[in-house]
C-alpha cells in the first residue's frame, strides 16, 4: 500500500466510521411538525411514489435523514432482467421519488447501486430503474465491476467475518435501502435485510456459509439510514425471480418506511402473511441488536390514503 492508497483508505474508512456513528441512531432531538417522532411510517392505499411522499412527511421529512451536502447511496432491488410489472424489482417511480426527496434535502450526490444477479446493464435497463433514477437526478454507477469492491471487516460477525463490499457503502454518508417485498424460495420472504446482499461482491459465499446469519450480519457493517419497503405489488409465490407459470401477485398497495431495518422486515413479514419469528435472519438480526422485531415497542404512524 503506497501513501496515496493509504490516504484514500484512511479517508474512506474515517468517513464511513464517522457517518456510521452519527447516523446509526437518528438524533431524537430533531423536532417533528407535530412534536412526535415516529420510528416507522406505514402507508396503505396509494401508488408507490405518492405513498412515499406521505410516509416520509410523517417521519419528519427527508431532511431528518439527509443533510445538506451529503452523499447518498440508494440501494433498490434491480437484480433481474425483467419488467417491473413482474414484481421482482423495485417500482421505478418510487426510486425516482426518493431521489427527488434526497435532492430537495440538499444531497450533493445521489448514487444508485445494485450488484445485480442478471447482467447489470440489461437488468438496470429492463427494470427501468436506471431511467427513473436518472430522471430524478441520481446516478446509476457500476455495481458489477470488481474494481469498485473493497474488503471490509464486519465487526462482531461469526459467519461473515469480512466481505468484499461496494465502495459506496464505505463512502456514502447516507444509505437508503429500497427493497421490494416478495416471496423467496429459500428464505420465505426477501425484503430489507436481504436486499443488502446486492452490495457485496460474492453473494454465493452467503449461500454456502449459513445464508440467514450472513444476511443478518452484513447489517453490522453498515445499517441503512432509512429503509423504504415497496409492498405495492407483492409476489406471493415463484420468487425471487418470478416466473410466467408459478408466480402470483397481490396488489396490497402498501409501503413501510423506517430507519430500523429489522422492524421494517418484521412489518414486511406480517404484510406478506408470515411472522418475523419464522424468518431466521430477522430473529438473528434482532439478537445482534441491529434493530428490533418487536413492533409493539415502536411508535408507528399508520396512514390510510
Amino acid at each position, binding site marked *: 500500500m503506497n501513501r496515496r492508497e493509504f490516504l484514500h483508505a484512511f479517508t474512506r474508512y474515517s468517513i464511513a466510521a464517522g457517518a456510521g456513528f452519527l447516523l446509526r441512531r437518528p438524533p431524537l432531538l430533531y423536532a417533528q411538525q407535530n412534536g412526535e417522532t415516529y420510528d416507522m411510517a406505514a402507508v396503505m392505499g396509494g401508488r408507490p411514489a405518492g405513498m412515499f411522499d406521505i410516509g416520509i412527511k410523517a417521519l419528519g421529512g427527508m431532511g431528518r435523514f439527509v443533510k445538506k451536502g451529503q452523499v447518498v447511496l440508494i440501494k433498490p432491488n434491480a437484480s433481474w432482467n425483467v419488467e417491473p410489472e413482474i414484481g421482482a424489482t423495485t417500482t421505478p417511480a418510487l426510486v425516482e421519488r426518493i431521489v427527488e426527496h434526497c435532492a430537495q434535502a440538499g444531497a450533493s450526490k445521489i448514487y444508485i447501486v445494485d450488484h445485480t444477479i442478471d447482467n447489470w446493464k440489461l437488468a438496470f435497463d429492463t427494470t427501468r430503474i436506471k431511467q427513473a433514477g436518472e430522471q430524478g437526478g441520481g446516478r446509476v454507477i457500476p455495481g458489477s465491476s470488481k474494481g469498485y469492491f473493497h474488503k471490509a471487516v464486519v465487526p462482531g460477525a461469526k459467519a461473515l467475518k469480512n466481505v468484499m463490499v461496494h465502495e459506496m457503502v464505505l463512502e456514502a454518508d447516507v444509505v437508503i435501502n429500497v427493497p421490494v417485498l416478495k416471496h423467496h424460495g429459500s428464505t420465505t420472504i426477501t425484503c430489507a435485510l436481504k436486499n443488502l446482499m446486492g452490495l457485496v461482491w460474492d453473494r454465493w459465499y452467503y449461500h*454456502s456459509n449459513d445464508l*440467514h446469519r450472513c444476511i443478518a450480519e452484513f447489517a453490522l457493517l453498515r445499517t441503512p439510514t432509512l429503509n423504504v419497503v415497496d409492498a405495492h405489488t407483492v409476489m406471493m409465490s415463484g420468487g425471487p*425471480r418470478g416466473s*410466467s*407459470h408459478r408466480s402470483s401477485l397481490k*396488489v396490497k398497495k402498501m409501503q413501510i418506511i423506517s430507519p430500523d431495518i429489522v422492524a421494517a422486515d418484521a412489518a414486511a413479514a406480517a404484510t406478506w402473511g408470515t411472522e418475523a419469528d419464522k424468518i431466521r435472519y430477522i430473529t438473528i438480526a434482532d439478537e445482534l441488536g441491529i434493530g428490533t422485531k418487536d*413492533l409493539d415497542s415502536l411508535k408507528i404512524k399508520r396512514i390510510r390514503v
Partner: protein
Amino acid sequence: MNRPGYLILKVLRIVVAAAVLVLFYVSLSLTGPVYSGILKVLTRLQFFPSLINVVLSGGGWFSAGFLPVALLTVLFGRLYCSVLCPLGIIQDVVIFISGKKRHRKYSFSSSGARLHGTIAIASLIGLLLGLPFLFGFLEPYAFWGRMYRDLILPVSAGVSEGAVLILKEFDLFLAPLPFMGEIGAVLLTAVSALLFVLLTYVYGRWFCNRLCPTGAVLRLLSLRPLGGIEFNKELCTKCGVCAHVCPAGCIDVTAQCIEHNRCVLCFECTERCPFGAVDFTLMRGASKRRFSKGRGEGRIDPDRRKAVMVSLGSLGAAGGLGLTGFGLSALTSCNSNYKPSDSPLPEQQKNTSDLDKAGRAVIPPGSKNVRWYTARCISCHTCVSACPTHVLQPSFFALGVSGFLQPVMDYKRGYCEWECNRCSQICPTGAIESIALEEKKRIQMGTVQFDKDRCVVFTEGTDCGACAEVCPSQAVRMVPYKDGLTQPATEPEICSGCGSCEYACPVSLPKAIVVKPHSTHQVRSERTPQQILPEEEVPEEFPF
C-alpha cells in the same frame, strides 16, 4: 512521394483499411444494436466466413458477402486482402513498423504455390470432412478474431480498469470492459500471433501467399484481373525500387512483370517508382500484349502454371465444399429433431431417448447439434468476445479433436442469459444459426441434474436456494424439506440448460447441480404460461 496521384490511392487504401480495423475493434468491444449491426456487415464481407454461412449453413443471400468480394477480385485483384481482411490490415501495420525500423528491402520471391496449394487444399479438405481445425487455424478472419479476444481484449480490459480508477477521482463512474476466460487459449493465440508477426516483420505478406486459405482461392480469381498494375517498359530502367517496396514480393523486375495473383494493390510501387514506369490500368487489354511478350521470355511460366494448378485445386475443393455442404446439411437435419423454423410442437418433439445421447459439453443455443456445430465453426471466437455473461469460452478437447478451440458453454464462468441471443446473431459462419429470442427460449441445450449429496441444504443443514433463485424457467424450485428448510426440486423437461443453477451453486467442484449436455438440442416442454393477473387484495387493517 514522387507521384501524387498514387499517393492519394495509397492514402485512400490506408484510410479505408484503418476504418475497417477501427470498426472491427469498436464493434467487437462495445455492445448495442448499432455495434452488432456494424459487426454483422463487416463479418458478412469476410470471404470464407460468408461462403461457409451461405453454402454450409444455408444462411441466405443476405450473408453472401463473398460474391461481391469475388467479383471485386476478378475485376481488380486482391483488394480484399489490403482493405477488408483484418489480418491483412494488421500485416500492413507490421510491415509499416518493420519498414521504419529495419529499412529492409523486399525482393521478388518465388510464388510459393506448392506450399500454399498443399496447405490450402489440406485445410479445405478438412473443412469438407467436417474437421475445420487446420482451416480455422489459418483462416484470416478467425485468426484475427482470436487475436482480438485473446490479446487485444485483455489489454483493453486492463487499460479500461486503470482508466476507471482514475476517472473515479473525477466523479465519473464507468464499468470497465470485462475480460474473463480460458488462459490456455490466450497462450496458444499469443504464440501463433507472435510467429505471425515475426514472419510478417521479416518477410512481408508471407502468410497471405503461403498459408492463407482465402489467399489461395483469391489467387485463382485474380490470375488475370481486368484492372491491375502493369509495367511500362519504355519508361522502366529496371532500377528495382518497386520490387524493394513490395511486401508481397510479386514484382519481377528482370522480366518486368507483376504476378497479379499475389498483388494486393497496396500502391507502394506505383507511388515510389521514380520513372512512373509502373501504373495501375483499369483495362489491361492494351498491356496484355506486353504481358505475353514477358511470358515469351520464359521467366514466370512455371510459377504461373503452378499457381493455376494450386488455385484450381483450391477452387475445386471450394466447389466440393458446396456439394458436401448440401449433403451434410441434409444429413444433419435428418438427425436433428430441433427445427427452428417449425412451430413448437412440444408433444411431438419431446426428448426421445435414442436421440437424447449425452453430449460432452453444452454447445450454444442455435448450434443445433455437435456435428452441425463442429463442422461449421472456424473458431473465430467472435461469439466469445460478444457474450455478455462470458459463458462462451474456447474449449480444447471438450468436443473431441474436431472441436479444437471451438467455444462451448462454461458454466463455471457464467450462465446463458435468458433474454439474450447475441451469439446466434453475430456468428459469421452460421455455425450458431441465427434464431429469434423467442425461439432461443424454447431450446433445450441440456438438462438439469441434481446431486443431493453435494447440496448445502443436506451437507450443512442450512438454507441455500441459490439454484432455484436464478432459474429462469423454474425447472429448479425449492420445496419443503424439514425443520423449515427447503430443498431443490427439478423438472428436467422444462429446463433450458442455461446453467444459471450450476453457475450459482456455491459448493466447490463438482457442483451439486449441473447441466447434462445434449449432443443434439431439443425443444423444451413449456408450462402454459398463465397471464399473471395481479389480484387486488388491499388489507382491511394494517397487518401489524
